[in-house]
């Protein structure tokens, strides 16, 4: 159910009105591509356009005809280009690089005959999940993703809308408002949304993980209190395991939860968590803390902590390479009091709960990598079909063909690994954990390579923000680090291989 047609016509209408100041076409006579627009480029482009025209020439028809187009004479005025795309034809000459290539990823991923297809093999319902998420991403995420990245904006309004569509608790049971869908359904959604913005989709996956943990391990009262609000994304979640002193060695965490001397029903938390997504702007924190005297995993319990708790504070927002649409901060606990009813599961079960959450999280992060790669290859494919060098489109060179074939092989393999792991997890297969691990290992690393390759095919344009691929690359880089680094994924997989010996 791809709603883009009305979006396209609406987009055409609004874009025509917005076009006057914003559009410039830095087009050489050889190619018709690279009509780009950025708000910062407005001033400089207008200046260069008027100077190219030899001064302040008033263009016939007024400002509606993008002045930049006249800088290379012979080019059809912008307004006419817009009309030609209004009839539904995929001739987007003149549209911004972002809008135009945004269609590239949509058509590539949805084409039934492309090796890049995201939808072949899905049943009708799965197809609807994917297409709904892809349509939502095209309309509500893709147009803003660059801005969110550039200005480090956490798109809470969009996140809440996702909650309204039931994307907040996809594989959580329906009892308290979850959608009761499968792990695969969720992976498809994260994949599709990531084509718009991997950072937003990844945050959504973290939230889904938290909601599932509360629903699966919380007491009935706790579930009734929190799951409904989390399912609609009225209350947003953060997952707090990593500390300054322990990432991969998660069981060595040092945050303590000591029974209060004044009230035996209350634990007092002290410690610090690092690199927490959403921290400072979310409402519910799932914090793994040491309750027992044992070191290692056995002494850890999982607590649900309210953002408003006394003693809970947050460090400065980190300036990161990517994932700028989700804020990352340390979480600081100074004598934070938490009632024992807020513990998920029993004392000492926290580590196990955390790892169970991550099994799903790993599949979801892998899915986010796939979406980012899918968008990148879609953009790159459109580009190489248009861009010419040495007398023909880049796509006609064997090197380009081979590069795309390799990207397709990696992308399809990643997709299959992640979707298979999702099915195994849903079936509670004994292979679930190691499958999730090797699927994350595969998908995050292969898809990063795919995005990097796609970037290279764009040449200089690949390095430019307008073409989006560099943003997907920066976002995808962290996927082989968090929720279990590639190195840990190898440990987990190897452990399953040599289990009995």
């Amino acid at each position, binding site marked *: 159910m791809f709603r883009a047609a009305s979006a396209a016509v609406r987009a055409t209408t609004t874009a025509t009105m917005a076009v006057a100041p914003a559009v410039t076409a830095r087009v050489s006579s050889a190619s018709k591509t690279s009509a780009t627009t950025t708000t910062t480029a407005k001033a400089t482009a207008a200046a260069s356009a008027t100077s190219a025209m030899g001064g302040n020439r008033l263009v016939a028809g007024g400002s509606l005809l993008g002045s930049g187009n006249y800088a290379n004479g012979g080019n059809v005025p912008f307004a006419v280009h817009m009309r030609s795309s209004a009839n539904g034809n995929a001739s987007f000459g003149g549209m911004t690089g972002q809008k135009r290539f945004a269609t590239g990823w949509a058509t590539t991923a949805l084409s039934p005959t492309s090796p890049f297809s995201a939808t072949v093999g899905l049943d009708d319902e799965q*197809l609807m999940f994917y297409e*709904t998420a892809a*349509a939502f991403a095209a309309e509500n995420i893709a147009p803003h993703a660059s801005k969110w990245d550039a200005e480090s904006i956490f798109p809470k309004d969009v996140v809440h809308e996702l909650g309204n569509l039931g994307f907040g608790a996809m594989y959580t049971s329906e009892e308290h408002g979850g959608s*009761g*869908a499968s792990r695969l359904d969720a992976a498809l959604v994260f994949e599709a949304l990531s084509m718009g913005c991997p950072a937003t989709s990844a945050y959504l996956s973290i939230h889904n993980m938290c909601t599932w943990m509360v629903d699966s391990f919380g007491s009935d009262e706790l579930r009734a209190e929190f799951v409904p609000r989390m399912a609609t994304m009225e209350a947003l979640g953060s997952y707090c395991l990593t500390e300054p002193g322990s990432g991969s060695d998660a069981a060595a965490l040092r945050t303590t939860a000591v029974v209060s001397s004044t009230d035996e029903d209350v634990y007092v938390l002290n410690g610090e968590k690092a690199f927490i997504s959403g921290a400072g702007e979310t409402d519910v924190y799932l914090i793994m803390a040491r309750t027992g005297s044992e070191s290692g995993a056995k002494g850890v319990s999982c607590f649900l902590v309210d953002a408003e708790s006394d003693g809970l504070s947050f460090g400065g927002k980190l300036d990161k390479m990517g994932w700028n649409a989700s804020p990352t901060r340390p979480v600081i606990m100074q004598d934070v009091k938490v009632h024992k009813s807020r513990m998920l599961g029993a004392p000492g079960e926290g580590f196990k709960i955390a790892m169970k959450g991550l099994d799903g999280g790993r599949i979801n992060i892998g899915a986010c990598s796939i979406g980012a790669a899918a968008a990148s290859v879609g953009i790159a494919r459109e580009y190489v079909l248009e861009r010419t060098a040495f007398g023909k489109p880049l796509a006609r060179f064997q090197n380009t063909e081979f590069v795309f074939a390799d990207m397709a092989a990696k992308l399809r393999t990643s997709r299959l690994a992640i979707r298979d792991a999702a099915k195994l997890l849903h079936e509670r297969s004994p292979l679930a954990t190691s499958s999730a691990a090797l699927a994350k290992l595969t998908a995050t690393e292969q898809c990063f390579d795919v995005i990097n390759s796609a970037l290279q095919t764009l040449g200089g344009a690949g390095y430019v923000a307008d073409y989006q691929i560099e943003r997907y690359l920066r976002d995808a880089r962290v996927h082989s680090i968090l929720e279990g680094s590639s190195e840990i994924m190898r440990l987990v997989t190897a452990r399953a291989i040599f289990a009995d010996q």
Partner: protein
Amino acid sequence: MAANGAFGRVLVGVKRVIDYAVKVRVKPDKSGVETVNVKHSLNPFCEIAVEEAVRMKEAGLATEVVAVCVGPKKAQENIRSALAMGADRGIHIETDEEVAPLNVARILAEVAKAEEPSMFILGKQAIDDDSNQTGQLLGGFLGWPQGTMASKIEPVSDTAVHVTREIDGGLETLELSLPAVVTADLRLNKPRFAALPNIMKAKRKKIDAKTPADFGVDMASSLQTLEVNEPPVREAGIMVGSVDELVEKLKGDGLI
């Protein structure tokens, strides 16, 4: 204003079309466009029609929304989309023949006679053939009033609606007594995204399978397509230096 449930059953016509974003190719034999292995979707104007009907149900005006589709077997997935948006059940008239307005309107008229809705809402046109005929033909076959190119539908009483139409001269408002045919234009509403739980409910909703023969309609078209061609390649325009020169050129080309 209309009483609760006054509009009863509302039928919505939906069509499976090539997705708007697909780069359409003409078949080598020029008999039509390539449709095999090409992404298809619910026609955007039909989506708007479904949305309007579902909103009527949510407002308590309608009690049931039925999605009706004439199309190939695969159209079932598009009917499911309508169900996911909130339609209650579907009717699928399955045919592999060319789906053209005249025969579709004949079938839909029979469906309407059987289902007795207060309103039959269709998209104003399909984005594959851009006919803009089915709704009008349907109204004619049924002898029902019609409000086409609707940008607004307002209930006036239990048995009448005001339909605002976008026409060349501006906006025209008609009062239609029910039952009526309405066709949806772009600005009627913004269709919803199907929420996940509704997508899952959709597979449990009923779709009745029928054939054109069940309605006594022969799908053979009375129109024969002679040839389909790609539009001519756009040529570069000519830069003119002044308005006078523009006028001269237009006169020279016999355009004014």
